């Protein structure tokens, strides 16, 4: 399977996408294109196989956001620059369950983090945050996402990854054996 990750296109086939989670399926089928092209509240990137380049195998959605400086606790503000805190929201990430276990999730988050780094380099952002389902928090933690305290028990777990950590990861040149 030769996977390509690119922006969602109008002619992409999304109707049969099934990641096992109805809100995530529904977002791709009903809202992703509109949100990207018409109301501009999120850009969706899709993983497709080069042999069937219209069928979406997985996707993630990114948006930018910021936290007003005056909403941050004073005791921490001294360590931050005197501006609102810009960040990237990894709003959604899902893989069609018929294609799970083939490294698509890794490929998708890899691309999301590379885009994050490019945005940080071009316009500035301090971190990437995501809302993780509780059973997926461990998967995000493998990539260094740290859980934020204070998330309500009924809500997805907000998780944080510092852009400086991503940048450091991208500059490490040491040998790492491939995972078995």
């Amino acid at each position, binding site marked *: 399977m030769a996977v390509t990750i690119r922006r969602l296109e109008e002619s992409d086939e999304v109707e049969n996408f099934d990641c096992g989670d109805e809100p995530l399926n529904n977002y791709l089928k009903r809202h992703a294109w509109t949100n990207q092209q018409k109301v501009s509240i999120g850009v969706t990137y899709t993983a497709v196989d080069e042999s069937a380049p219209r069928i979406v195998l997985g996707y993630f959605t990114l948006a930018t956001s*910021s936290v007003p400086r005056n909403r941050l606790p004073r005791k921490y503000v001294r360590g931050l620059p005197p501006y609102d805190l810009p960040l*990237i929201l990894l709003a959604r990430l899902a893989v069609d369950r018929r294609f799970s276990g083939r490294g698509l999730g890794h490929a998708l988050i890899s691309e999301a983090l590379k885009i994050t780094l490019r945005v940080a380099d071009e316009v500035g952002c301090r971190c990437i945050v995501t809302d993780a389902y509780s059973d997926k928090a461990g998967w995000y933690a493998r990539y260094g996402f740290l859980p934020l305290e*204070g998330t309500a028990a009924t809500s997805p777990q907000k998780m944080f990854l*510092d852009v400086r*950590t991503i940048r450091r990861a991208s500059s*490490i040149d040491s040998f790492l054996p491939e995972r078995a």
Partner: protein
Amino acid sequence: MRPTVKSKKAVALTAKVPTARKSKFQADLAPSEDSMVRILKTELQMTSNTDFLTDALALLRWAVSERKRGHHIISESSTGERKILLFPRLERVAPEVTLPHVDIHWTDKELESLAELASGQPADPTDALIRAMRQ
């Protein structure tokens, strides 16, 4: 025709310039890709792989430079229908990544936790993160 005269000094300087070493390029192509190369060479009336690679390189170099400047590469049909080239590797060199802005609902405790993490020293990258950035 106006005669050109080279001084002895100029000739000597020219002689000292080392000849640029040519690199050899070898690629393993799938049968379908090999067939595609042959078809393209025929269509473009090329006989050598060197000419083919040189032209392909020039085209790719131009595409990269255009995307680096933020220009989109578009084909336009005779009826005015336009298609934008979206080539993932080219998108990586594009300067502008435009992402829309959204508001996030935060609890006070989440903001405190966010501020604490953002104002502190960054964590060391995990092995999975290093692999992701290398992919």
